[in-house]
């Protein structure tokens, strides 16, 4: 299977839908141990995704993703804006300047690029109650998947979701919630939840026939 602009755009719009449905949930989780605005930020990033896809006519993938990354970083979203900006910029790293279509191998390389970009700005590992608890297992699952694009997206979504749910039982070791220590037990990490929704949205937006 190959994803062209239209196919990839549908994935991103599906991510925006999934994020928008969860805005109040993220605000509520974040108000427990943060400043309560993760949903606001995610709503702004979702809108940025939507506007970028709607305006995407003839640019190759790489410049499109680079300008989407800049827009996401500029939403004014605390740490989530720059982090999601890095995630998107990382997607563009393995692409050639003129890439017009994406196959399963390239999609996996794009996820690996996201992981590398995120790791260049955060030291957080699995188990520290951050976005990385969803991202790292999702990318690992995608890398190990031998199937085509829908299967890759499905296993990444499942791994990200499990990773985000596991943050409920973690004590925060990173970011602003860290100072609450044991009190963070029982509440999932808002960033891990929105990262899981990113992968869920991609999977929901994937074509179901090959």
């Amino acid at each position, binding site marked *: 299977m190959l994803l062209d602009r239209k196919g990839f755009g549908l994935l991103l719009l599906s991510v925006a839908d999934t994020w928008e449905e969860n805005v109040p949930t993220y605000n509520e989780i974040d108000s427990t141990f943060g*400043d*309560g*605005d993760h949903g*606001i*930020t995610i709503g702004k990033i979702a809108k940025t995704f939507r506007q970028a896809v709607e305006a995407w006519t003839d640019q190759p993938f790489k410049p499109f993703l680079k300008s989407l990354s800049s827009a996401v970083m500029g*939403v*004014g979203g*605390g*740490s989530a804006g720059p982090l999601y900006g890095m995630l998107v910029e990382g997607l563009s790293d393995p692409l050639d300047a003129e890439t017009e279509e994406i196959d399963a191998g390239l999609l996996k390389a794009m996820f690996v690029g996201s992981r590398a970009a995120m790791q260049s700005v955060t030291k957080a590992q699995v188990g520290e109650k951050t976005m990385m608890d969803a991202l790292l297992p999702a990318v690992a699952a995608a890398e190990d998947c031998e199937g085509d694009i829908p299967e890759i997206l499905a296993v990444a979504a499942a791994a990200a979701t499990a990773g985000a749910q596991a943050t409920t039982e973690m004590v925060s070791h990173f970011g602003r919630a860290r*100072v609450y220590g044991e009190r963070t037990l029982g509440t999932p990490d808002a960033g891990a939840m929105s990262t899981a929704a990113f992968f869920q949205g991609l999977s929901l937006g994937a074509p179901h026939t090959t």
Partner: protein
Amino acid sequence: MKMKKFINDPANLTAEVLEGLALAHQDLVELGPDNKVINKKLASADRVTIVTQGGAGHEPALSGFVGEGMIDISVVGDIFAAPGPEACVDAIKLAEKGKGVLYVVLNHAGDMITGKLTMRTLENEPGVKCIKVVTQEDVSNAPRSNSDDRRGLVGCVPLYKIAGAAAAEGKSLEEVAALAQRFADNMATLAVAVRTATHPQTGMPFGDLGDDDMEIGMGQHGEGGGGRQPMKSADETADIMVQGLLNDLDIQDGEKIMLILNGSGATTLMELLVIYRRCVQYLAGKNIEIVANFVGEMLTVQEQAGFQLFVARMDDELLHYWKAPCNTPYYKQV
């Protein structure tokens, strides 16, 4: 408790705050694209310039200190949210007048990521010389040896003042940065809260301190530092906090300090003055002299009740720059 604030559409809040600031202080500041607040005299500056970044919602900080002798450009994200690196790169390029730019970043997760990405992008801008200084003086959540975990609180404001004055006197970028770093290395803040604020865009409170407790080490946005305890009197609270700061900085008998008592938004000037009086008594008892001070609001957190107590070790050079003239919307020195 339901939020009661005079706001319009929360999505436009930051833009409206900055518009109001620029209208109220037209002689000093103007707005640039992507939420930049710019010193009106920047265009004619022939010196090192000062750029900073950070969220809104802390008025008058940070943008209320843009003007002559302090900040040249403040890049604002959204309420309590850092801007992206692109806007910061633009601001630093705009501020580069051939003498270099001091870029001040407060240690908060989002600001630090933006700061890192901004500096990375500037590596490919050969015409721009920029040195980043991070403020990280909250003593509550990490020891001095682990300052990367210390948050940036009100200490950025006197740092802007001192660095801005050195820049105005024609010091080189290296000299301004070294001075700013020396001040940053010798400052400490403790925040206390008795009632938390609500986020103006969601109406959600930052945690809950109940009717009887206060929390020493509250950080800037209610991050919490583990010092929750029953409410104490003004004098008892002042003693605990002053001693905590003296211990952290290892200030000795006979030393000179700056002391700032910064209200968080809902604590009255009446209370601040009572606390300040006690700080002076306590320090006099230890033969420590306050040579520079400020009592009032520099950096607030909406309607959070509480204050930030700031101490910095001073010397004649730092004091000279603190006392030098400046003219910004919310801090003036003649």
